Structure formats: structure tokens, C-alpha cells
């Protein structure tokens, strides 16, 4: 099909300009003024930003095994609605993605029913049990480039070092969910003034920082590419900044909710504020925002974690961890960081594409690039009540938001189209 994106502010290799973009087949055919494209589907992009589709390094699609929460079809549809053209699917499914054929299943299923590209991530350890290495070579051959036991961190430093040495040879990324099991044990929210008053067992910042500090020492030795998932504390930011200054191949991501909310939200006892890492202090939120601005944190990744409604109709302590985020990410990032479109596209598209090695995504718009694009309206006002995702566990449900994806194009397909009411 042919698509004409008309009159938007386009992110070109030389900067932003109001231009038309024509997509033909699966490539960008033309970028210029007053373009004509007979029989094209027209997307009116006046007042909108047109750039590379968003890339999410951290999404739980829940398939195989947990389809009552979400599946590849609904999860990728939610991604498209949020402006994403590529997501990296976390491997903590059932069974977990620790062998080649399982990674192939996810990729194939996404090709069949997905509304965005899916790059499966693979486990570091077999079964995510933390004892033996997963089938790293098989996974690599199946297209896996990011390895993580997400949902848990790899606690055994000896095993982690082996994984790092192995993957350093290939150039794979070891992504760590930093959660020291001893320090985190039994905790439900940030350990601090609010948890003390609520009498709730806490998750200290140290549970994250200790593991990151340890891992960085291993990175220093092995030279592997290392990625810190869902950074939540000022201390972690400082560790990452130091590691980068020392020249280590370290990258980091942060979620939109950690850029927005702090631990006082837990006083509502609403499980829509329960996730790992937990919401931390206002000081941490400020440090995270600053880190996104100065590049210490490379990418915004949602950690989209769907859970079914009945799983959340329980006391806070018993609720599963995690919230969805694909559809609200852009609005949340806009609110937290301001309307800096260079920054936003860098963190939500360019950098995550580079980290995942996806060269068909995250590229400034010019003729010849693969047609993976998003059109966002930074001024669109909307209130999410229902979601494209099968799940609804969102701290933004019912909240008035500004900023929304108006159209998403993946490999030349219009995967999302939103009618903007004038």
C-alpha cells in the first residue's frame, strides 16, 4: 500500500522540518514538500511529529503460557496503539524462552498475528532457575540479541560471569533485572518513610544498587555489553554514570512510571502502583529525569506487565507486580521530560533500536529507510479508560493525558490509526 503523511514536523537526518512523507511498500519512498501520491492512504499530520517508530526494550507479551493476561496479538496491538514498531519480548513466559525453538515460536507467532515487530529476548539461565546457562547459542541463532532472566536477577556471580564471557564473544547484551534476593525478600514497596508508616515490608534501594555494583565489576572484567533494566534509584544512576565515564559498554533504561510517580502513591493501597522496582522517593524521580536528559539513561522502556483484573482485586501485598505502559508511554514521557522532541525520539526510538541491534528501526526519516514510523500529536488530550491491551492495570487509568500516537506504520503497514477529534 501507499501512505502519504502530510504536513507533519519530520525528523530528518538534518533536523526537523515540516514535510510530507510517502511510504510505498515497506520503505519510505519520498520525503519533501507538497508531495503527491495518487491512491495513497492519507494521514493528516498537521501539528504532529513524524519520526522513527518507538522501540521498547522491555515488554511482557505473556505468550506462551500466561495468555489470560495478554498474548502476542493483543500485546503488539497495544504497542502499535502506543506508537511502537518494535518491542523486545521478555522471556519469563511459561515455558521460559531458554532454547532456540521457543524463541523461534515467539518470532513466528509475531510474524503471523503481531501488529509490530517482536525481537524475542532469551534467558541467561536454564528455566530462569539461576543454576545453569540457557542454550545461548541456539537462542543467538534464533535471533536473540538481548539476554535476561527478567523477573529475577542472576544472583550467582560465578554463573553470571560465565554468561558474560560467553556472550561477550558474540556481542550479545546481558540485561540484568537487579534485585538482590536477600535484601528484597518479602518486600512490597520502597523501603523508606512510607513503608515504615504503613508497616509494609520494604524493598531497599540497596537491593538494586548492590547487584548493579557487583555486575559492573564483572563487566569490567569480561568486557560484555551490559544493560541495566528499569533503573529506579539515584544510586544506580550514579553507578551507571561512573561506569560510562570509565568507558564500559553499559546502557540503561527507565520506565515511564518511575519518571512520574513516587512511593507516596502506595498510601492509596491500589495495586496499580505496585511494581518492581517499586516507586521510590521524589528525589529518585528527579535524579532519573535528569539522567534521561543527560544520557546516563539511554532508553525509556515500559516494562509493560499485564495482569488480569481478578489478579488485582486483592490486598496490595498479595497483588502481582507490574503495570501496563505501552499505550501511555509517550504521554507520560512528554509530561515528565517536556516537549523536547529530539530527546523523546532519542530515548524512545533511536537509542533502544541501537541497543537491540535492530537496524530497521530507530532511523531518522529519509528516502530508502524501512517504513517503521510513528506520527504523534503532542497536544492531543485524552483519558484512557479502556485499553487495547487485554489488561487494565495502569496507574494512568482515568487520568487526563496529553500526547498520543495518531498513526503507526510498521514495515509499510498502517498498524494503528487514531482519529484525532479537532
Amino acid at each position, binding site marked *: 500500500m501507499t501512505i502519504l503523511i502530510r504536513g507533519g514536523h519530520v525528523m530528518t537526518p538534518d533536523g526537523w522540518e515540516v514535510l510530507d512523507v510517502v511510504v510505498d511498500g515497506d520503505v519510505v519512498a519520498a520525503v519533501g514538500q507538497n508531495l503527491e501520491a495518487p491512491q495513497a492512504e492519507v494521514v493528516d499530520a498537521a501539528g504532529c511529529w513524524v519520526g522513527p517508530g518507538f522501540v521498547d526494550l522491555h515488554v511482557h507479551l505473556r505468550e506462551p503460557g500466561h495468555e489470560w493476561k495478554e498474548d502476542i496479538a493483543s500485546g503488539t496491538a497495544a504497542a502499535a496503539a502506543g506508537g511502537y514498531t518494535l518491542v523486545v519480548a521478555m522471556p519469563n513466559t511459561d515455558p521460559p524462552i531458554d532454547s532456540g525453538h521457543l524463541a523461534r515460536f515467539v518470532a513466528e507467532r509475531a510474524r503471523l498475528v503481531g501488529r509490530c515487530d517482536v525481537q524475542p529476548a532469551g534467558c541467561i539461565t536454564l528455566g530462569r532457575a539461576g543454576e545453569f546457562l540457557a542454550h545461548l547459542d541456539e537462542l543467538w541463532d534464533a535471533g536473540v540479541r538481548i539476554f535476561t532472566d527478567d523477573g529475577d536477577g542472576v544472583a550467582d556471580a560465578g554463573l553470571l560471569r560465565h554468561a558474560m564471557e560467553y556472550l561477550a564473544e558474540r556481542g550479545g547484551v546481558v540485561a540484568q533485572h537487579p534485585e538482590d534476593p536477600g535484601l528484597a525478600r*518479602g518486600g*512490597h514497596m520502597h*523501603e*523508606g*518513610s512510607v*513503608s*515504615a*508508616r*504503613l*508497616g*509494609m*515490608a*520494604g524493598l531497599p534501594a540497596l537491593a538494586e544498587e548492590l547487584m548493579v555494583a557487583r555486575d559492573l565489576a564483572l563487566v569490567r572484567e569480561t568486557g560484555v555489553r551490559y544493560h541495566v533494566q528499569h533503573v529506579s534509584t539515584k544510586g544506580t544512576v550514579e553507578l551507571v554514570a561512573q561506569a560510562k565515564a570509565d568507558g564500559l559498554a553499559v546502557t540503561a533504561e527507565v520506565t515511564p512510571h518511575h519518571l512520574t510517580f513516587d512511593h507516596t502513591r502506595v498510601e*492509596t*493501597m491500589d495495586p496499580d502502583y505496585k511494581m518492581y522496582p517499586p516507586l521510590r522517593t521524589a528525589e529518585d524521580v528527579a535524579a532519573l529525569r535528569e539522567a534521561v536528559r543527560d544520557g546516563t539513561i539511554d532508553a525509556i522502556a515500559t516494562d509493560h506487565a499485564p495482569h488480569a483484573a*481478578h489478579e488485582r*482485586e*486483592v*490486598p*496490595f*501485598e*498479595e*497483588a502481582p507486580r507490574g503495570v501496563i505502559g505501552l499505550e501511555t508511554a509517550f504521554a507520560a514521557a512528554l509530561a515528565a521530560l517536556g516537549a523536547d522532541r529530539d530527546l523523546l525520539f532519542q530515548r524512545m526510538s533511536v537509542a533502544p533500536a541501537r541497543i537491540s541491534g535492530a537496524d530497521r528501526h530507530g532511523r531518522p526519516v529519509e528516502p530508502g529507510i524501512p517504513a517503521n514510523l510513528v506520527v504523534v500529536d503532542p497536544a492531543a488530550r485524552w483519558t484512557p479508560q479502556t485499553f487495547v491491551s487485554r489488561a487494565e492495570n495502569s496507574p494512568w487509568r482515568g487520568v487526563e493525558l496529553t500526547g498520543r500516537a495518531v498513526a503507526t506504520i510498521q514495515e509499510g503497514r498502517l498498524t494503528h490509526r487514531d482519529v484525532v477529534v479537532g
Partner: protein
Amino acid sequence: MKNLLTTEDLGRETLERLLDLSDEFVEVLDREIPKVPPLRGLTVATLFFEPSTRTRISFERAAKALSADVMSFSPGTSSLKKGESLKDTALTLRAMGADIMVVRHRAVGAPWRVAEWVDVPVVNGGDGAHQHPTQALLDALTIRRHFGKLDGLEIGIVGDIRHSRVARSDVYAFSTLGAKVTLIAPRTLLPRDLDGWPCTATGDLDDVIERLDVIYLLRVQTERGGATAFPSWPEYVSRFGLSRERFARLADGAVVMHPGPMNRGVEIAPEVADSDRALVLDQVRLGVAARMAVLFTLATGRGLTREVTA
């Protein structure tokens, strides 16, 4: 007042009115027929997901003394999958006619969630280590009836503060009523962050015991993680137990309180528990009156308003 979930946001006036109301109900309970009709036709449901006989019976007694009917739900601990039935249980009891629900649960915040799902008043009967507001009320009532007021009193709360909902409720209630509260515990049993708490804290009981008007003893909650917080029972007892020797050093008018059940010989020496300066049984007796005041207030939606010309 729609629900009673926590003492943190109860202002002084509300607290005092609840205590005044409780005094009236103490009088009712002293009558030959200790029963009055205001809650006739209403049903009070107790949802106790954590085992407790004394608190549940106290609430039931209070409900019946107000002529209400009682429904009690106490699941066995093993057969229920974690959390699956809280919402269903609450809705089922509501559908069966519960007009007020008293909820006790080992998870912090459970009564708040129940209050989201039902349209009737909810009383927090104890949620995890967070709050137990009716205990604080009866404790304040006991102190007020003994001393006349709480203003200026020195109250020491000794024991496993970190895991204690009684302590958290008491700290707010006592200090709102004008008392000076000190928490006395080893560091491992104090909350990690006391920033903003209306009290002081110390690890040295002997340093403060002689200036206390009320020494309030807590039990160490082994079921909530307290058991690994100190090296051994004898060591705990030697530093924080109210032994005969320490009891002798208490100021002349000072009293001893405990929310029960007591570990005799641990936090309290047996002869101290039985002395007439221990108000433990008063607490139990006054607990019914305090709970009557709470149920009455929630059921009538008022009871705390000023005089209206008839």
C-alpha cells in the same frame, strides 16, 4: 465518618467524641440489662482472615449489646488460595445483608480494598502491621478513665514496634490527645524510618522507665518476622522485659498496659501481670464499649454532631 480504617487522620475532636460516646456505653454495659436498641435490625459482619478470638468476640459482643445481629466469617488458613476470596467474600456477605463490616487481614491495606468494593461502613480490625484503630481507642479510653486525660502524660511503648499495628495506631491516637510518646525497642524492632512520627525512640528502657505514667508492653510478633531480630529470648527479656525489679522502679501512679495476649515471663513478669496496676482486664472490658461507640457512630452516620434542638 464513613469508615474507621486508621487513627492517623482522626482529629482530636473526633477522638474525644468517640471516647465520650464510649463512656456512655460503659454505663450501658454496667446495667442489669446491658443492651440498648439503636442497631436493631442491622447486621454487623466480621471478616477475620487472621486468627483472632478475643477481638472478634469483642466486636460481636459490642454489636449484640447494640441489638445488632452478627455474621462471622473466618476462613481456615490452609484451604484458601492467597487473596482470591477477599473481594468475593466481601461481596457475598454484603449480599447476605451485612450493614457494617469489620475486616482483619494479614495484608496491609485489605480493609481499604474492601471499602472500595462495598457500599457499607468498614472497620479495620487489624491489617498486617499497619493499623488497629479500635485497639487504640480502647487504650486511650482506658488511660483517660484512669488519669482523667492524656494531656502531658508520658507513655512508653515497649517491644516489637516494627511489626506492630497496635503501636502504629497508638502513637497517633495518644499524641493527638496530648500525650508524649516514647518508643522503646532494640534497633532491629524499631521502624527503619521514624521521620515525621509524633514520638521519640530509645533502646534503653532503664533510662526512661522512672518517668513513665503508662508503660505499654507489646508482644514480640514471631509470626511477623520478629523472631530473628534479637539474639535470644533471655537477652530480650533482660533488656526490655518488665521484670519485678523494673516494676518496682515505676513511678507511684504509673500503670501497666498490654493489648494481649500476654507472654507471661517474657515481656511481663507474671506477678506484674496480676498486680492491680496492670490495666489489662480493664482494657478488655472497655474494648467492648469502645467498639460499641465505633459501631454506633458508623451505623447512624453521625453521633458525633453537636446538639440539635429537638
